[in-house]
């Protein structure tokens, strides 16, 4: 295996949600530009962090990659195949190799199924096991995520948030995927439990050679877990580079503001920290600003930012940024 084998290649991904009006005859009156031309690669075995504030399109990107939302345009190449062009049975077969862990461990498990059924259902669907072998698989997977294998016949409500998230991880692992899209897997959990789940994800990556797309809004956690980080704002990626480069030499003014807004748990440091406080709120994705999308809140915006959309370019090797002022 080549060291830099690209597992997933996303090219100019666009997802617009139509806004319909009318009672009997529905007419499209606009669109929510949730994702508006996003491109990136994920190399085998790495963790790519995708950060941004709520509504910036990071979850939609994750779902569009797995074809849970069919993209409006663009391509998603996974192991050489363009998922956007696949349909039905072939799509389902290819998708087996990519799984998702959801944010809310309370809503993502069916309350009427036992843990064993939840974990092994995907295996039965994909003919990876037979009904009589499911018990063994369920026990093996529970053990893998650090739960007691005797829990297979229990129901989700008997577990705490952190334990449920482990069940969600076990379900994702059941199909032996290469890529796991983690959509804010820890933001619903308490601090002391977050660390347990993050450690588990790291252990599993080392053990099974998994590749993660880690979607989160917590920049400290993203720094901890990612190899490279992409920063999203209003449907586009504004900066993409390696973790250490991003946290030491952020170039885009949005990234800089975002980093300066994250509190550091140390009063001695906090007392002397200078913050870049952004004014206002994120504009509506129904009607995004012309030119650069960040210009309405940008402290260094100029005339050109209004007229021309900044190109997403490689400024130094491996450091991509979309800003006229860099």
């Amino acid at each position, binding site marked *: 295996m080549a060291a830099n084998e690209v597992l997933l290649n996303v090219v100019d991904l666009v997802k617009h949600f139509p806004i319909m009006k009318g009672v009997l005859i529905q007419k499209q009156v606009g669109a929510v530009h949730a994702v508006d031309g996003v491109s990136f690669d994920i190399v085998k075995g790495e963790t790519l962090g995708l950060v941004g504030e709520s509504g910036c399109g990071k979850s939609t990107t994750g779902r569009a990659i797995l074809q849970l939302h069919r993209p409006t345009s663009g391509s998603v190449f996974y192991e050489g195949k363009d998922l956007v062009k696949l349909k039905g049975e072939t799509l389902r077969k290819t998708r087996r190799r990519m799984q998702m862990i959801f944010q809310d461990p309370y809503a993502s498990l069916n309350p009427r199924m036992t843990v064993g059924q939840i974990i092994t259902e995907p295996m039965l669907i994909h003919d990876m096991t037979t009904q009589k072998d499911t018990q063994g698989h369920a026990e093996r997977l529970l053990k893998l995520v650090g739960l007691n294998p005797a829990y297979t016949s229990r129901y989700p409500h008997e577990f705490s948030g952190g334990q449920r998230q482990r069940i969600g991880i076990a379900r994702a692992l059941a199909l032996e995927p290469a890529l796991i899209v983690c959509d804010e897997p820890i933001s619903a959990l308490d601090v002391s439990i977050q*660390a347990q789940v993050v450690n588990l994800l790291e252990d599993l990556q080392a053990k099974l050679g998994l590749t993660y797309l880690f979607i989160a809004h917590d920049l400290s956690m993203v720094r901890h877990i990612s190899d490279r980080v992409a920063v999203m704002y209003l449907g586009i990626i504004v900066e993409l580079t390696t973790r250490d480069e991003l946290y030491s030499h952020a170039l885009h003014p949005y990234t800089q503001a975002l980093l300066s807004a994250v*509190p550091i*748990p140390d009063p001695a440091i906090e007392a002397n920290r200078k913050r870049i406080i952004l004014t206002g709120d994120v504009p509506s994705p129904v009607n995004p600003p012309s030119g650069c999308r960040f210009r309405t809140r940008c402290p260094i915006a100029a005339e050109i930012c209004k007229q021309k959309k900044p190109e997403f370019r490689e400024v130094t090797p491996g450091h991509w940024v979309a800003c006229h002022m860099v």
Partner: protein
Amino acid sequence: MSELLSVQGLETQFRTREGIVHAVNGVSFGLKEGETLGIVGESGCGKSVTVMSMLRLIPSPPGKVSAGKALFQGKDLLKMSDDEIRHIRGSQISMVFQDPMTSFNPVLTIGRQVSEPLEVHMGMNRKQADDRVVEMLTKVGIPNPRDRLNDYPHQFSGGMRQRVMIAMALVCTPQVLIADEPTTALDVTIQAQIVELAKRIRDDLGMAIIWITHDLGVIAGLADRLAVMYGGYIIETAPIRDVYAHPSHPYTLGLLGSLPRMDESGQRRLVSIDGLPPVLLEKPNFCPFAPRCKYVVERCWKENPPLMQISPDHTAACWVNPETGRER
């Protein structure tokens, strides 16, 4: 600085189908004039119930404040008549809630809701109240406040709604502002705006703040003192810098270790706290943190440690000194 608010031995229980939940088990703390106290803990540790009990906002039944005192300027809030406490809530002590989406009445205008405390407590008429509301909305950074008086809550974004909520809490210039996870529902850039706002207003108006949070990052730049809660007990209190520099309870130590830090480049493995937070169905006669504690000794299972003085201004409820690993 004199003591403005003093809570002593507060206990609150809830009657549920599973049994009695001991949510707060003898909590004591003081708040001086102009001081900012942070109360930190995970969900279910009793931090919100503590302040709600103090202000008599616990629905009863099923809840019951069974013991303790909450002295505000020398008078016990828990013994006051309903009229007296109503007079204090919203005028001398006011509260900002976590969720700016659900804490407003959706069918009343913002102007109407923010001016309500002024009409109730200060007896102002519509016109005077409106002027004061415009002044407050300007202070919290709402653009064109006069035009927005007739807007409804849904016409504001989350961050703006939280600003309006703060304005509402401040219209009567309270002496104590209680903020219950005011930034938890907000994005980081908006959170930074709200924290800056709170600091500026505190310095302008000189009020005392109780800031409840689960985020040891946010509170680091804001509070003067910190109280850490676990299982319905305060388990450590100290000036803010001491808590971070010399955490003296294994739980505080664990919380700090489980936080990834933005200013840290190495791939340090996070120190997680094993196990789960306690179910508060019975009041334990041992240390509530003992089942998850790395430093546990025999004594922890026999006696629940009280808050002990470990340096002049620093107390912790632990039999063991986690810095040395030996019993105190």
